[in-house]
């Protein structure tokens, strides 16, 4: 039996998992690339219809939360439990803000009749249908990852509160943080691909 925890090994496992997540989204980015090549004009039109202000706001929110997650890991290593808890609560709150923004964004689009298999999209330009189809699939899957990330951070928070995570054993928090950075990183690609296209 192993007597001590192999922190490097835990991280290797987590990084391998993150690779697989990147490739999961990679499949969708392949579709994006192929369809962008096929319908460049429609993608440009579609991109203008998305709300850049909310998109940019969400980017800032996620970047900020990534910083606070990293800060919480540093805080736990320095032994300051209160600061860790504060940073974590703020990060989870950021995730929540992101989802609320997303809700309003999706809601507005659906209100205008832009959703998968809607009359407007099916009878309109095929390229636009593909653009919004990909938009819903990719941001939807990303939103799901935000939720998973928030759950992981909440579990870490609970463990910190219970005293199970401290300065000497914080792999769970560390790996949840890595996951959160991944979700952030994917958004960094999603944002320009949809909101800033041409």
């Amino acid at each position: 039996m192993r007597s001590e925890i192999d922190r490097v090994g835990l991280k290797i496992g987590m990084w391998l998992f993150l690779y697989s997540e990147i490739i999961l989204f990679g499949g969708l980015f392949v579709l994006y690339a192929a369809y962008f090549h096929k319908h460049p004009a429609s993608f440009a039109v579609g991109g203008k219809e998305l709300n850049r202000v909310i998109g940019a706001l969400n980017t800032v929110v996620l970047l900020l939360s990534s910083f606070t997650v990293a800060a919480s890991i540093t805080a736990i290593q320095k032994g300051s439990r209160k600061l860790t808890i504060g940073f974590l609560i703020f990060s989870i709150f950021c995730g929540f803000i992101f989802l609320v923004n997303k809700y309003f964004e999706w809601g507005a689009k659906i209100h205008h009749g832009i959703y998968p298999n809607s009359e407007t999209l099916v009878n309109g330009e095929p390229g636009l249908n593909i653009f919004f189809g990909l938009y819903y699939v990719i941001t939807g899957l990303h939103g799901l990852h935000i939720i998973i990330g928030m759950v992981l951070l909440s579990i870490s928070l609970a463990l910190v509160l219970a005293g199970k995570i401290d300065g000497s054993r914080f792999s769970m928090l560390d790996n949840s943080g890595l996951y959160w950075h991944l979700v952030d990183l994917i958004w960094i690609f999603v944002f320009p691909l949809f909101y800033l296209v041409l």
Partner: protein
Amino acid sequence: MTSTPSFYHQSAPPGLTGIKAWLLTHDHKRLGLMYLGAVLFWFTIAMVLGLLLRTELMSQGRTIMGPGLYNSFFTLHGVIMVFLFAIPAIPAIFGNFFLPIQLGTDDVFFPRLNLFSWYLFMIGGLLAIVSLFVGDGFPDTGWTFYVPFSIQNSKNVGLTVTAAFILGMSSMLTGLNFVTTFHRMRDKRMGLMQIPLFTWSLYSTAWVQILATPVIGITFILVVLERLLSIGLFDPDKGGDPLLYQHLFWMYSHPAVYIMILPGMGVISEIIPVFSRKSIFGYKAIVWSSMAIAIAGSLVWAHHMYTSGMSDVSVFVFSLLTFLVAVPSAVKVFSWIATMYKGSIEMTPPFLLALMFIYLFSVGGLTGLVLGAAGTDIHVHDTHFVVAHFHFVMFGGTGFAFFAALHYWWPKMFGVMYTFRAAYWGAVLAAIGFMFHYVPMLILGLQGMPRRYYDYLPQYETGNFLAGFGAYIMVFGIIIMFVNLLMSFRKGVPAPADPWGGTTLEWKVPSPPPVHNFIDKPQIMDFPYDFKGVGEQSQKNGR
């Protein structure tokens, strides 16, 4: 040495008894055996389905089932054999059981994750069963789930695809576990070039599992979403392109072919030197060819799509890359043969099965070149030639490697020896039946009989009848093999720690191994296939 209780008598984590000791276990050996049970169950079902299919085809027109059932059956046969037998069989059973032992350690890096993978595997299998009985029944799309048929059709495609997604997760997490174990749990004194070849092959397989499986994951998610929401990403009317589905599908499913065959090659690389009493020829070449197959095999997916509509340049590039994969595969075959050359061969059932593997796999590989060449592929695309080709590789290759592994490691896993005579009979009958079964299909394919068809023209009847006849002989042989193995429990002839004169670490521990695998610190040899000491040792054992 006998005083230490085996892992059957001691649970990990300690204190569990009865069924809980199995269902909540963290022990990689118990999990390997649990996979063995599940995989054999699925293999039997899919084998029976295959037999029914070939019986239907033995004569023209309706023989025992209607066309709808036939379509569902060949889909079910394919889905089970691919996702529940060929992909998990060797890594999940023998990999779980022997990878930690060959690395000189007591378990995989993430034991609980390993248990979780097993549950995912069972849930995936359960969903596949459920999809048989609810709604409109099992899909009739073939295991490839090509759009647009898989999206428009009213059968239970969504549920089956979800099952395959979950099975993919299970396989990926196992791979993740193996890679981490390989790097972090290996005995500190064991260098990279001292690792047994079976473990090396699992390592390269694990990378393919990690890097390729998510692609099929997202593809299957898209199929489900399309069925629920009709987004139109693969629908030309809505601006989509069905060809992109095929690309995404084969980006995983071609590398998956190497997930199936690489561990099989690893098994053969273990068996050949042991029974030739000679160090493996070209150890480093075999290690590198495993990695080369894993890398090059990930870049050839579009050779399944020569007739789907691609530019000539793409066809040329993919054809070239396909030919390149043949090189590392041939390196392995020649290394095995060179190992046997001037060795002192001891014939045993695992060795015979390994020889059969080399022969059948070579036929499968060479017919693969016919398909890899864009010109000849146009002629035989989607014919019975393709069916025969991939059965030579998947069944003649992976299947026979699985049988060989079962016979090779059976004494270690269960601590009992089986009868050689019946094992030889089973193996020989299975191989003869195999040739009878698939060689006619090669010819039928060249003559133009398409695959997956329910009925055919009169001139194909002889070939189909022969193939069906061969199928019965083959299944008979396999049954003899399995019954013989099961009979070993009844006879209960205890197996010594090293019945074969093997040199890798699993033969240094008692059969079956104790719960922490090693009683004393394992001795790491400078080279894992050094047979210098084996002769004296077997003399001591009175053999």
